[in-house]
């Protein structure tokens, strides 16, 4: 009787996909993939936008008849979204559910502790967990976790990028840092500090905040005491970034501002925070600024806006934040990999991802290369500094 009971579990557990004729979730005409995001709770805004971006691009390629894979077959993509509420146990449950529902891969999920919880299982079961929306360095080590990849530049890279920008100016600058109290904040800070080492740029004040904080007034007030030249806002919560800008100027402290890419959105941060009171506002970016009317006319950006409206209308255009664009662009990267995928297996997907090397992924800035062949870095490692001038961002090379 026990044997009979045991027969019920045929291939649901740790199935090896090496050399299989085809893996679950893929047929000659369809590909089933899943994504786990915080769709409710405090991080619901980035989570929903991320999923919307993916849905927009997937809807677009499906409408064109599907994607022509590297093995010659054209398939449509079925993307299913799952809510994890930023809870690691739920994210792991979602991953297991995806496996039970025969999804081919987990793609583009947003979050760090959530993806960390699922990562060991994904690698144990050899299920691709790719294009993750997180700048944590935990996801870029493919020697350790061959089935997991990130997509955006790491927070370390962002910080280093800005640090180099400051150091290159040759000026003696002081920096005050407000960082999120977790690895994101730590990485942003470390990237900056490492890059300015040995230069005339010094970090003179540091403070932290929790994403759930109602106000950061006390921290800004403390940082303002330093009268630093630069305010480095390693902040991922848009409203707190805006509140920082409001408070600092109230106190009479008007440094130049650096906004992390997560919170560089003008409509939710710079405008409500009266950013024009500051001498300069910079951010790092690798994505086009769709809010710039000239840029919005470019074909990939116009297509993005149209696709968002058609396939992800739950996000109003004025509420589009960077995560939507990153999701769209990550989806495009994934489709590039599909186009190079030579066999309908998970291993073939991972091999194909490693071949993706392109500078024409939709929405990526000119000059940003995506290279997913590295086993030790994120697919995107280059960033540009952009400055907010006259209501829009423009990329700049040196500090003025």
């Amino acid at each position, binding site marked *: 009787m026990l044997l009979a009971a045991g027969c019920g579990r045929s291939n649901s557990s740790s199935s090896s996909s090496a050399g299989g004729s085809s893996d679950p979730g893929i047929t000659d005409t369809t590909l089933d993939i899943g994504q786990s995001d915080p769709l409710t709770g405090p991080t*619901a*805004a980035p989570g*929903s936008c991320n999923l919307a971006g993916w849905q927009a691009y997937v809807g677009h390629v499906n409408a064109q008849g599907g994607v022509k894979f590297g093995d010659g077959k054209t398939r449509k993509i079925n993307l299913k979204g799952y809510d994890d509420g930023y809870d690691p146990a739920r994210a792991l449950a979602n991953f297991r559910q995806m496996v039970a529902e025969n999804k081919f891969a987990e793609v583009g999920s947003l979050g760090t502790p959530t993806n960390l919880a699922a990562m060991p299982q994904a690698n144990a079961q050899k299920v691709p967990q790719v294009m993750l929306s997180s700048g944590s360095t935990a996801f870029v080590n493919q020697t350790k976790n061959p089935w997991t990849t990130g997509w955006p530049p790491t927070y370390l890279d962002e910080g280093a990028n800005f640090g180099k920008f400051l150091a290159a100016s040759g000026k003696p600058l002081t920096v005050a840092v407000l960082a999120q109290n977790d690895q994101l904040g730590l990485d942003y800070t470390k990237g900056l500090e490492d890059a300015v080492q040995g230069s005339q740029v010094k970090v003179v004040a540091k403070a*932290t905040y929790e994403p759930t904080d*109602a*106000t950061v007034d*006390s921290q800004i007030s403390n940082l303002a005491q330093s009268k630093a030249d630069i305010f480095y806002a390693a902040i991922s919560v848009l409203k707190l970034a805006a509140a920082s800008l409001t408070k600092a100027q109230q106190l009479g402290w008007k440094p130049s501002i650096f906004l992390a890419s997560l919170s560089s959105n003008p409509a939710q941060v710079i405008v409500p925070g009266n950013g024009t009171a500051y001498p300069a506002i910079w951010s790092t970016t690798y994505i086009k600024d769709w809010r710039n009317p000239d840029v919005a006319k470019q074909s990939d950006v116009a297509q993005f806006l149209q696709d968002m409206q058609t396939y992800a209308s739950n996000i109003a255009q004025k*509420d589009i934040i960077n995560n939507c664009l990153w999701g769209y662009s990550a989806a495009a990267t994934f489709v590039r990999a599909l186009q190079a995928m030579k066999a309908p297996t998970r291993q073939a997907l991972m091999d194909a991802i490693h071949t993706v090397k392109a500078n024409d992924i939709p929405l990526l800035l000119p000059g940003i290369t995506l290279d997913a062949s590295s086993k030790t870095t994120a697919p995107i490692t280059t960033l540009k500094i952009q400055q907010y001038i006259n209501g829009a961002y423009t990329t700049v090379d040196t500090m003025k």
Partner: protein
Amino acid sequence: MQHAIQQIVDGLAAGSIYGALALALVLVYRATGMINFAQGLLAVASTYIAWSVWRAGSPLIAAVVLAVAAALVLGAFTERVVIRRFEGGPPHTAVVATIALLILINGLTGSIWGYVSQPFPSLFPSGTVTVGGVVLAIPSLATTGVLIVVVVLLQLLFLRTRLGLALRAVADNADSSALSGLNVGRLLMVGWALAAALGALAGVLIAPKVYLDPTMMDTILVYALAAAVLGGLDSPLGAVVAAWIIGVTENLAGTYIPYVRDDLKIGVPLVAMFVILLTRPQGLFGRRKAARV
């Protein structure tokens, strides 16, 4: 020294935010004997209503008045339809019902208005006043002023009006009140309606500073609960004073106690609250109640 005063002033401003919601909690408690975990979310929903009306082109003050009126209806409706069922029963059930409301309304506001934070206009001019090098934001000053007025009004309500007396009677002993001819059901609805209206007011005062989104009141609720309990759950003045103490203590601890820094500063007023309650269980301004055997 000036910096310390700035931290104190900012702490008072934060305390006014916590106190605004705490007052609504105290009102519900005073009128119905229950702690309403969903108070913050009711406030958020009302504020969203004000926001929608304002975005449709209405002047802000009209939008606020409309939202407060909507809150009166929402509060009464919630009590009658949802909470009434649980009022005679064990307090745990009623509390969990309010928790369920919290989750439900959070989902509804997110679904209707989205999760992206929205700037919300202030009823008051947005400048600052600088006194001796210390910067005070006018909206914060105004909020504090409104708070004090509301405390006075609430005290008048409860101590000097028949309605207030009736509300207190119902909360204290519903059976006797019913026997005395009070319409208990209607009075409970009035209590919730007033509390919701107060919450709506708190929402429109708070939102300009912390931005409007479905999670706007989540952390503030914890502070407001602490303030309400510390102040003595049935004292409006106590709630506001406690809220100020919490705001100031938090800022000073985070700035001047090296071990605490920013991440643990929230713990300091909470632990202080605990200690104060141990020596004075009825809270700063609460009344001692006798236990009936």
